[in-house]
C-alpha cells in the first residue's frame, strides 16, 4: 500500500495495550484494512491481550469499520483476551446501538475507566 500514514498510536501500560485511533473518519476501505492488519499483528504477537481502543478522535465511521472491529473482537476472544472500546461520541455510539453492537462490545465512556476494567485484580496479560 502506498499510503501508510500512521493510523494508530499504541500505548502499553500495566499490561494493557491502549490503541488511540488517529483518523477522524474511519471510512476508507484501505485505511480500515490497514488498521485491521496492524491490530491483527499486535494480537498475533501476544499470548493474550487486553486491548482498549480509544475512539475520541473518530467523528465518522462506516459499516466496514464495524466489520473490522468484529473481526478484531473475535481474534482477541480466541486468545482469551479482552477488547474494550472508549471515547465514543454520541453520534457514533448511536451507530453501535442501531446495529446492536453495543451488546457485543464492552464500551466505556473514558479511557481510564476502560483501562481499569481491562485490568481487574488478578488478571494478567502477556504482551
Amino acid at each position: 500500500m502506498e499510503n501508510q500514514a500512521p493510523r494508530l498510536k499504541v500505548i502499553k501500560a500495566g499490561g494493557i495495550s491502549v490503541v488511540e485511533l488517529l483518523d477522524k473518519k474511519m471510512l476508507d476501505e484501505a485505511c480500515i484494512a490497514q488498521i485491521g492488519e496492524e491490530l491483527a499483528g499486535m494480537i498475533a504477537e501476544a499470548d493474550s491481550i487486553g486491548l482498549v481502543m480509544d475512539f475520541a478522535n473518530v467523528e465518522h465511521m462506516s459499516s466496514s469499520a464495524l466489520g473490522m472491529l468484529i473481526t478484531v473482537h473475535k481474534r482477541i476472544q480466541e486468545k482469551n483476551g479482552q477488547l474494550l472500546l472508549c471515547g465514543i461520541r454520541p453520534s457514533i455510539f448511536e451507530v453501535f446501538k442501531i446495529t446492536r453492537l453495543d451488546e457485543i462490545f464492552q464500551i466505556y465512556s473514558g479511557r481510564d475507566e476502560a483501562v481499569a476494567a481491562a485490568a481487574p485484580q488478578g488478571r494478567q496479560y502477556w504482551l
Partner: protein
Amino acid sequence: MIQKSIPTDLEVARRLTEEILGQARAAGYDEDACFAIRLSLEEALINAIKHGNKFDRSRKVSVSADVGADLTTITVIDEGDGFDPSSVPDPTADENLEKPFGRGIMLMRAYMDEVGYNDRGNKVRMVKHRCSGLPTSVGQSTVHSSGAEPESPCGPSGKTEPARHFRHGPGRQ
C-alpha cells in the same frame, strides 16, 4: 443540483461526498443531518463501487444529489447486476450479530427518511428531510449542549420524527 458520472474509484467518490456535504452545510443543514447524509452516501457509494461495479474501473457510478431547502434527494446508480434488498439477512438478528458484514443498507435505512431500490437493484434513491435529525434522541446536540441552545429552524429539539425501525434485511454492506 449535482449530477455526475464518476469512475469506480473510492477517492473520487469521497470528493463527491464532500461536495454534496458542502452544499448541505451551505443550505443550513445541521450537524446531525449532515452526519446522516454522509454516513448513508458513503455506504451507498461503497456498495456501488465494491458490490455493484466490483471495483471494475471501466464501469461508472452515476450520482445525482438535489439539496433543497427542506429535503435532500440522492440517487446512486451502478453498472452491476443489481440485487434483491429484501432477500438478505437482518444484521440485528441474534444469529447475525457477530458477522463482520451486512450493515450498510440497514444504516442507510435508519439514517435516511426514505430508501428505495429499482427492480433490478442497481439504483438506490435516498431522501433526507432537513429536520428529521438522527434515528433516536441521542443526537450530538443533546449531549454536548452547555447552556442555551442556538435557535434552530427545525424547532427546539431539532427532531420531527420518532426513531425509525429497520424493516427489511440489508443486502450489501
